[in-house]
């Protein structure tokens, strides 16, 4: 074990996969010479050469389309979108081709797309989004949202090994802010298994990504009131760990679904609906959602703060549920 930042864990995990499997290569804008916009692939080109760490032209369509072709031919490409927001340019290649290729023709498409996502640093509407829900809606894609350095490494290994197109949402706000112990050896963190970030009896928070830490801080503020909060980190949205969620609901009967993505059509709605369908008789309060509002992400720091769910918003939501 050694202490690593979230970013370091991703970088190390990726390097390890490239060392053990020659089919793995990296492609993206500025990932080579420059080492990536966030320096995840710093030093990669020196170690693996320009043919395995490819600087792509400014065309997400070309990157994802090229990865899809390479994957069909047996490679294991790992693409980097400089910002998750830019993946919309590659929508057609990803959604129409990669996601459906196996269904249509039987050929697996083992691509991993790294998506630096999330806000909190005034990146504005093009550099701050959390578009995971849009892709969770597309059959054929897997959606991964690690919250801890350990999961960041383990889930990346699983994504690269997975025979399906995997969207790996790495939260930029966690890159250098979150540090934790990461096993030195290689391991794969399975998809569809939620992680109990902290156990509790009175309220459940279902969340993922950076919101795990927002929930944690909020829960600490409720400690003083004698209210014990369980935080469930889904880790992956497709597949998502329904059983773990339902178990937590059965225990606490009061649920807050929290995400940084916008409200309408957000994955929180899917979770809330599933709880209503399958655990209705275990509910002691309406399922509550705290999300970003249905607007683009604002540039202005105070407005962005109003946009992204803050600790005090979660505290208020939890209190409201607790008092219900």
């Amino acid at each position: 074990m050694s202490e690593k930042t979230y970013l370091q864990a991703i970088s190390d995990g990726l390097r390890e996969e490239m060392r053990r499997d020659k089919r793995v290569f990296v492609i993206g804008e500025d990932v080579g010479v420059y080492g990536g916009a966030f320096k995840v692939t710093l030093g990669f080109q020196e170690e693996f050469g320009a043919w395995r760490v490819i600087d792509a032209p400014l065309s997400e369509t070309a990157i994802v389309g090229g990865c899809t072709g390479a994957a069909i031919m047996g490679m294991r490409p790992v693409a980097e979108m400089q910002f998750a927001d830019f993946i919309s340019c590659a929508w057609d290649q990803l959604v129409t081709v990669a996601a459906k290729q196996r269904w249509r023709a039987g050929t697996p498409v083992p691509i991993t797309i790294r998506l630096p996502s999330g806000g909190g640093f005034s990146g504005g509407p093009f550099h701050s989004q959390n578009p995971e829900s849009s892709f969770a809606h597309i059959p054929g894609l897997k959606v991964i949202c690690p919250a801890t350095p350990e999961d960041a490494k383990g889930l990346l290994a699983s994504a690269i090994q997975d025979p399906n197109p995997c969207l790996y949402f790495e939260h930029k706000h966690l890159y250098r802010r979150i540090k934790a112990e990461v096993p030195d050896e290689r391991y794969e963190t399975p998809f569809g298994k939620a992680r109990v970030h902290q156990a509790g009896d009175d309220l459940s928070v279902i969340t993922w990504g950076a919101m795990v830490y927002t929930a944690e801080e909020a829960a600490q503020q409720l400690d003083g009131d004698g209210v014990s909060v369980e935080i469930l980190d889904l880790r992956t949205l497709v597949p998502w760990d329904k059983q773990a969620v339902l178990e937590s609901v059965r225990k606490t009967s009061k649920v807050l679904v929290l995400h940084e993505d916008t409200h309408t059509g957000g994955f929180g709605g899917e979770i809330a609906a599933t709880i209503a369908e399958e655990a209705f008789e275990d509910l002691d309060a309406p399922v509550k959602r705290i999300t970003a509002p249905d607007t683009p992400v604002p540039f202005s720091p105070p407005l962005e703060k109003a946009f992204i769910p803050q600790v005090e918003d979660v505290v208020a939501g939890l209190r409201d549920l607790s008092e219900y």
Partner: protein
Amino acid sequence: MATETAVDVVMPQMGVSVSEGTITKWLKQEGEQVEADESLLEISTDKVDTEVPSPASGTLTQILVQEGETVEVGTKLAQIGGAPAGNGQAQPAPPEPATAPAAAEAEAASGAEGETPTAAQVEEARPAEPEPEPGPTPVAPAETAPAGDGATDGKSFVSPVVARIASEHGVDPGQVQGTGRGGRVTKKDILTFIEQGAPAAAPAAPEAPAAPAPPPAEAPAAPPPPKPVAPAPQPVAAEPGEQMEPMTAMRRGIAEHMRRSLDTSAHVTSAIEVDMSKVVAIRKKLKKEYEAAYGVNPTYLSFVARATVETLREYPWINGEIRGEQIVTRNYVNLGFAVELADGKGLIVPVLKHAEGLNLLGVARGVADIAQRARDKKLTPDEVQGGTFTITNPGGYGTFHGTPVISQPQAAILGTYAVVKRPWVIQDDRGEDVIAIRPIMNLTLTYDHRLVDGALAGRFLRDLREKLQTSDESAY
């Protein structure tokens, strides 16, 4: 001016994360004219302080939330236009002279910048307002509701989980002290209530439950009073030599159902003796065949069940139900069988659906299957519901008579008892009375006398006996 339609001013949503806001200042007073989009009041939330524009043009007829008060998003703050009381005509517009001083005072107070005017001050200064009882003033009901709601009116919301726990434990949520919002009973409240030894729901009032064990202290108090005594807690520790164990959910369910059945139906039992010679003979023959070919044992119970289903066809009321003011009959028989669980700690009544479509083999196989799965606890909820008539078979232990309790909402239950060889008077070939040894089984029909009269029950038992005594193999 009071004829314009009323428009509500509500606490605006200042971003999803904001749930409440505080009125810092009213920029207009009651009775004043305001234009649409003109600033009407100032609010402060945990995110921003801002002015709220008026949603419409008109007279500010009523201010419902005073300066300094904090209310949830969506709360009605004021009304523009319409009559002040909120419905058509009741009162005219608020008397200007009365409100003016209030306004003045409020302004003076806030201008003084001290504590901001207290709501009371402003309230007091509004002579026109204090008794807005006549109509549905928006405030009045809102205020009386929380006050009067206690547990008394039983109107407070019961959440799904509380409803489920209440029904599982036979507890009336109305008896539980609620600690949730507005006195709502939370899951914790009801669990605590049950843990502390909930009185087993309301109907537990009469003698029966009071008698068995409870402390002598309470018994004397009990004799005459009808029911208010029941809820008195009885979580008394075990006396020396006694042992306590918690009731299982199943035992509670049985207890509740048995009591309810006796409180619902007018139970009467009739019995008849049946010469089972023919059945014994047929069974002896079929047993080998069934066991070899199908692995099924044609039990006496399946013969009785088969004959019962046949007989019920002519007695629809015995296969019926009283539902409200109606009598329900049906063209099918869903036959329930009382099955004792392996650990002897409970009883369950799985149902053989559409038994009218099954021959003897089908009935025997069906009974064996549901009984086994009942003991293995593998029944689905669907398989213990929807019975239209029930058979209970305590005869396995040699009992020859009983008065079972009807499974609600059915009309009757058949008891089958041990087949016993008895000296029996029959007529020989010459028509002389002789004593023979015959296998005799008693059958009882316990029926709800509200629906089934004694004569009907008697005829049913007679016909059932006839079928069992005379039918040949082909009838099964």
